[in-house]
């Protein structure tokens, strides 16, 4: 019994790690620019297709493909910054929200036009399938996901807590005008945030692609789960994004095992519904304040 639950926990954490990565990128953009990016899920999708091209079509070595795919995501991030955020940076939330929806449609359909609608498989990184520990089978790709996510979260923590750049990014999020007044190049900070966020999303896509198929729609579900994770963890909170993602993955895994497989996705949305009504600030968020 314990073994089964541990197995479920393990796969839940792995999926949750993917949600956490995408969530993190999502939250960083919100903190820096107040933009809720409804196209965040398409970053993993684009990166997965880039990997597909480099690895399967061009037959480049894995590590090189990985690095180049992240480079592609950096370019996507820059394009997003100048094409979607910058022209609308002074407008209210609605035009920006809708533009991000448009950007998502564009990315999905551009990829569709190039690759066609059928899903493609992507080979796993390790030839070994995984290994058995007691009654639990640890899949190699899942282990990779957890390991890389750990590194990414560690990097995130290091960046923000121990580097000057991280402090400048935080200052930009906390008070844009004041950051300008002390001489922080705010526009550059924002561009960096988009690039970093796209790379995080891309990382998630590259990691999860061997498990799912590489398809146009793979991003949409991940995106919605990532948003849900953000809300559950605390809208705009970095720790909340990570914790929310992991929690969601685990809840889903147990729901699928014990309640119902097809409706497991509904749990995410039900959870969000409940949180939004009872505790909109999520687990870690600050109270949604009163203003005049």
């Amino acid at each position, binding site marked *: 019994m314990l073994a089964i639950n541990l197995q479920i926990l393990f796969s839940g954490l792995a999926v949750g790690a993917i949600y956490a990565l995408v969530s993190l990128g999502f939250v960083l953009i919100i903190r820096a620019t107040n933009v809720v990016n409804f196209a965040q899920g398409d970053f993993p999708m684009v990166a997965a297709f880039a990997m597909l091209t480099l690895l399967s079509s061009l037959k480049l070595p894995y590590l090189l493909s990985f690095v180049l795919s992240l480079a592609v995501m950096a370019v996507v991030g820059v394009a997003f910054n100048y094409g979607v955020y910058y022209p609308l940076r002074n407008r209210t939330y609605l035009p920006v929200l809708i533009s991000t929806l448009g950007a998502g449609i564009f990315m999905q359909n551009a990829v569709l036009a190039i690759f066609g609608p059928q899903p493609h498989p992507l080979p796993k990184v390790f030839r070994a399938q995984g290994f058995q520990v007691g009654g639990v089978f640890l899949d190699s790709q899942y282990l990779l996901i957890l390991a890389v996510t750990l590194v990414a979260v560690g990097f995130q923590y290091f960046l923000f807590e121990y580097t000057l750049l991280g*402090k400048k990014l935080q200052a930009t999020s906390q008070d844009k005008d*004041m950051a300008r*007044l002390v001489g922080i190049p705010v526009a550059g900070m924002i561009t960096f945030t988009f690039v970093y966020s796209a790379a995080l999303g891309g990382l998630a896509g590259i990691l999860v692609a061997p498990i799912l198929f590489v398809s146009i729609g793979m991003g949409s579900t991940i995106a919605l789960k990532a948003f849900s994770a953000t809300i559950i963890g605390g809208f705009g909170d970095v720790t909340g994004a990570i914790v929310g993602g992991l929690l969601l993955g685990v809840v889903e895994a147990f729901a699928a095992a014990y309640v119902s497989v097809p409706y497991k996705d509904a749990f995410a949305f039900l959870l969000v519904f409940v949180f939004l009504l009872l505790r909109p600030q999520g687990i870690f968020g600050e109270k949604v304040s009163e203003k005049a």
Partner: protein
Amino acid sequence: MPLLELHQVQSHYGAVQALKGVSLRVEEGEIATLLGANGAGKTTTLRTISGLMHPSAGGITFAGREIHRLRAEQVVRLGIAHVPEGRHVFPGLTVTENIMLGASSRGRLRRATLFAEIEEMFEIFPDLKRLSSALGWSLSGGQQQMLAVARGLMAKPRLLLLDEPSLGLAPIIVQQLFEVIKRIRALGMTILLVEQNAHMALSVADRGYVLETGKLMLEGTPAELLDNEEVRAAYLGGGRSPSPNVTA
């Protein structure tokens, strides 16, 4: 040549004209103060100087160079540090981190230099040393004000713009604050001080300007302005009702 000069500066917030042709100057090494009631345009003047806003007419020169078309990041690099109204410390960063970021306009600094300068700040603001790891939001109003000034000084500016530093602070803290201002001036800093509290400001300034609804009404030395009925009228009315002597 004055360090800072404003010439007939006009400024708008959308359709509302906030500054209606303001001319003033600040000489190097002095404290000039800009007084006036709420809504007179004092903060607008500072924001226009530091580049957060741009004038719709008129010009601003700093050390002989025209700066009124520059962006805020460029203005601070030239040597003007703006400590804004309401302090605006970075709430989620520590005292040390706030101070450190004050030097962002000076390019890459060696770690040793940076930390030495932070220590200097702690000399001038001993309370902050005690609070060096505290987060910005947890500080009291007075401590936040000290932090904001320290952060401003880290830019090693030639001109410091202080916007209503005494706002919301208890009288004792205000006194401490003004002691610090005097000390900074003694170190050679030029300061343009905006204040609602005319008495405190005039007790440290070398020259004063009085702004009223976007126009400069009075200029003079503290001696001329202190206990001047016209200054009181600018704040509290009394004997001067808005008379219809303007043509429609």
